[in-house]
C-alpha cells in the first residue's frame, strides 16, 4: 500500500500543521492555487506561520483571508504588491507582518536546493542590487555571484490536476508553476487535485511529480 494518503476531508489534509510552521503555498495568480487547502488551514487554526508563495494574497479570500485572520508572522515572496493586495498592504504598513522579498527565480531555486540537498548556491541574480546587501559575494570566472541559501518548508500546499493513489501528480498548463519544486522542499507535501485515479492510470512517462514527494492528496472540485 502506498505511503501517500488519499484524504477524505480537507481538515484531514492539513492536520498536524503546527504554530510557527513554514508553509510553502503553490500557485501563480489563481493558477495552481490550492484554495481548498488554504481555507482548511484557516479553519485548522495554526498561527505564527511563515508563508512562502509567489504573491501575498489577493482580495479577501485564500491567502489574503489567512493573513487577515492574523495567523501569518512572515511572508517570503517575490511580488506582494498587486492591485488587490490590500490585506497584505495594510498589515505591512501597520508593521504587523514581516516581508522578505526574493527574486522569483531565486525563490524557486532556493526551494529546489532544499529539495535536492544543496547546502547553498552562488547565483548571479541580484548582484549590485539592494536584495544582495549583506550577502556573501564570489567572483567565479570573472562573473559575480551572490550566495543564496535553501528555503525548506515544514509543509507544502500545492494544486495539481490529476493524482494517482501512489501520489504521482500531473499538472495542467501554467498551473504547474511552483508545485513540482515545492513538493520536493517540504517535510509534508499536500496536493489538492481535480481527480484521483488508480495506480496505472497515469502514463509513467508523463508523471511530473513522482509520488515519493507527495504525502497527502485531496480531491476537490477545481
Amino acid at each position, binding site marked *: 500500500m502506498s505511503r501517500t494518503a488519499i484524504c477524505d476531508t480537507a481538515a484531514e489534509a492539513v492536520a498536524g500543521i503546527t504554530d510557527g510552521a513554514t508553509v510553502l503555498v503553490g500557485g*501563480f495568480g489563481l493558477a495552481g492555487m490550492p484554495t481548498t487547502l488554504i481555507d482548511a488551514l484557516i479553519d485548522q487554526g495554526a498561527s505564527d506561520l511563515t508563508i512562502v508563495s509567489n504573491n501575498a494574497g489577493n482580495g479577501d479570500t485564500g491567502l489574503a483571508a489567512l493573513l487577515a485572520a492574523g495567523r501569518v508572522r512572515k511572508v517570503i515572496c517575490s511580488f506582494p504588491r498587486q492591485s488587490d493586495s490590500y490585506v497584505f498592504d495594510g498589515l505591512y504598513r501597520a508593521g504587523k507582518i514581516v516581508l522578505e522579498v526574493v527574486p522569483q527565480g531565486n525563490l524557486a531555486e532556493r526551494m529546489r536546493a532544499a529539495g535536492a540537498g544543496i547546502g547553498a548556491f552562488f547565483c548571479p541574480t541580484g548582484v549590485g*542590487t539592494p536584495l544582495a546587501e549583506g550577502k556573501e559575494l564570489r567572483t567565479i570566472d570573472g562573473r559575480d555571484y551572490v550566495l543564496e541559501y535553501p528555503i525548506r518548508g515544514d509543509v507544502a500546499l500545492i494544486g495539481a490536476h490529476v493524482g494517482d493513489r501512489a501520489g504521482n501528480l500531473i499538472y495542467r498548463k501554467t498551473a504547474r508553476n511552483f508545485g513540482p519544486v515545492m513538493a520536493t522542499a517540504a517535510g509534508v507535501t499536500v496536493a489538492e487535485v481535480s481527480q484521483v485515479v488508480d495506480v496505472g492510470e497515469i502514463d509513467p512517462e508523463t508523471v511530473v511529480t513522482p509520488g515519493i514527494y507527495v504525502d497527502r492528496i485531496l480531491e476537490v472540485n477545481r
Partner: protein
Amino acid sequence: MTTTGTRAHLTEHLDRGPLDNDELAAIIARDIPAGSYVNLGIGQPTLVADHLEPEAGVVLHTENGMLGMGAAAAGADIDEDLINAGKIPVTETPGASYFHHADSFAMMRGGHLDVCVLGAFQVSGHGDLANWHTGAPDAIPAVGGAMDLAIGAKNVYVMMNLFTKDGTAKLVPTCTYPLTGMRCVRRVYTHHALFDIDPDTETVSVRETFGISMAEIQSRLPVELS
C-alpha cells in the same frame, strides 16, 4: 527631412514626430532575429508580440512556465490554468511546452533566452537597469522576475519613454533608483530615439532619432552620446 549627418550610423527622422507605442513596438519586433526565444516584460513590451511576423518563428517565453505563448485569450478560449506573467489569460501555439518555475528560471539564468524586452524607470550609460522599485520610503517592494530577467537573457532590450512626464531624462549617468541589474542593458528603445549601449567602453550611441535632432537629444540628456 531625413539626414545622416556627420555620424555614419545615425539617421535623424525630422519630418515626423516621436514614435507612438505601436511604431516603437514594431521597430523592436523588426530587430528580433528570426527563430529567437524571447521574453517580453509586463507593460509596454507586451505590445511587441503584436508586431512579430508568424513566419519569423519567434518563440515567446513566459516565466511562469511556458514556451510558445500565443496571443491573449478571449471569450471561450479563456482558461484560468493558462496565464502569462502578468496573470492575463493567454493561448498556446503549436509546439508549446510547459515547465515548472525552477526550470523556467534556469532556462533564463542559464543564458538560453536570446532576447528579453523590459520596461524601465532608469537606464544608466553603462547599462545598469532600474525597473522594480522607486525607493520611496512608503513603497512596498515587489520584484517578481525582473532581476532574473535582467541578468539572464543574452540580450536585454529596454522599451521606455525617454523622459518622465515632467521632462526628466530616464537615460542617466548613474541610476538613482534601486538597481535591478548591473551592466545588463544593450539597447534602449524610446519614442524619441534608439540607443546602443556598450557596457565595456561605457559608450552610448544613437542609431535613429524621431521628431528630434541629435543635437537636441544631447542637450536634454545628461549622458554623453556618440
